[in-house]
């Protein structure tokens, strides 16, 4: 066993074959927003290996309850009640405790509470669509919400987003910072979605599809979906005491 805390090393090299490229013309907004030059590869320095931490004391008790955190007293958001839960891990399969997970979503009709969203579906006066959690000692997080609806969006003339929840995750290192989306098992819109299809690898897409988790369901209350998130792994520096030239 180690009796000292090993100094954190650089992150594993990001596998870009599993990540969406910047330029994906079938997702039209990417065309003018995609950098065109090669990224500058650099093994992470302290500036990227370090990262901010957030304490559990910043959370309010309703932060992970989207059914109630914007609802009037005694009321609740409309829609299928679900529990979303899972762990944040790194590529070495280690749980990451104490990481901030933020999430946002449309309401059950597929409408966001945002002045730019003009979709016909109704606003739910009791649903704000945002929440957050910090993982526990086992890297575990959970929140309660209503299942979001799919919605149409201007890209092709008839493009629909599958039902999804947006996630923002902090790791321990700023270079682990990640934003992604969670989809729901069995949604036929997943494989028709231009944004999903920015990911070049089918197995990678499947890692964003949360299965129904009957074991975690709350009987007579809410179904559960399990969504694990994996952040880049990090080398320890135990074997990295070589000086340049050795």
């Amino acid at each position, binding site marked *: 066993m180690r009796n000292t805390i090993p100094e954190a090393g650089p992150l594993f090299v990001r596998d870009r074959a599993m990540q969406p490229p*910047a330029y994906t013309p079938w997702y039209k907004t990417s065309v003018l927003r*995609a950098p065109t030059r090669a990224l*500058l590869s650099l093994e992470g320095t302290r500036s990227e290996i370090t990262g901010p931490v957030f304490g559990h004391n910043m959370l309010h008790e309703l932060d992970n309850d989207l059914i109630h955190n914007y609802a009037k007293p005694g009321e609740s958001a409309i829609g299928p009640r679900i529990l979303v839960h899972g762990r944040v891990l790194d590529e070495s399969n280690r749980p990451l405790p104490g990481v901030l997970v933020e999430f946002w979503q449309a309401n059950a009709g597929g409408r966001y509470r*945002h002045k730019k969203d003009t979709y016909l579906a109704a606003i739910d006066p009791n649903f704000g669509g945002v929440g957050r959690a910090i993982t526990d000692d086992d890297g575990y997080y959970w929140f309660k919400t209503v299942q979001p609806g799919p919605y149409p969006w201007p890209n092709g003339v008839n493009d629909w987003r599958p039902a999804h929840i947006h996630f923002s995750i902090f790791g321990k290192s700023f270079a682990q910072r990640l934003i992604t989306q969670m989809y729901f098992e069995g949604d036929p819109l997943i494989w028709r979605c231009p944004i999903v299809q920015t990911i070049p*690898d089918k197995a990678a897409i499947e890692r964003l599809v949360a299965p129904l988790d009957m074991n975690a369901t709350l009987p007579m209350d809410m179904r559960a979906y399990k969504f694990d998130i994996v*952040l880049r792994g990090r080398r320890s520096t135990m074997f990295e005491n070589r000086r340049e030239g050795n």
Partner: protein
Amino acid sequence: MVQPLGYLKESPSQTAGPYVHIGLTPNFVGIHGIYAEDLGVGALVNEKTRGERIVIRGRVIDGSGTPLKDALVEIWQADAAGLYNSPLETRGKADENFSGWGRSPAHFETGEFVFETVKPGRVPFQDGRLMAPHVTLWIVARGINIGLHTRMYFSDEADANAEDPVLARIEHKVRIPTLIGQRDGDAYQFDIHLQGERETVFFDM
């Protein structure tokens, strides 16, 4: 067959989409009452923070020259002594009045992001050489499929910039100015160009 190595793969990124501000700065888009305040928005400094007060402002600009009005930018930086406020900082204890992390939504009309912070100290590279003072930035928005990492260096640190080991890795020296914030009073202007002749250098760290 051999034993499986057992590594997992990083979850794929997806765009932050047009409504990223609902999730990360809900008060900014009028969703009040869930969080008392938006995390990381506003000054990174308080009256006890050590160091020179500065402001960093800029815009994220697309290939047509239009500033993005739906972007979100985060910064991460060392304190005035060059220490990070992170459990992974092993060289000493950073200023407890400075988190080093901030978040700014692009302004609805101008697209401008703003950070009120301190000028960071110098941080060593892996081989011990000092890097020039810099701030790390991370940019997400609709149409950006995976968050973009870059750095801002400081125009009034020409000597340090000239010996910076990261800037030295940039093969096309003509691109180095894309990483230099230009001082104007106590503010630094740092526009991030996603495309075009002045395309910012982005990093794969």
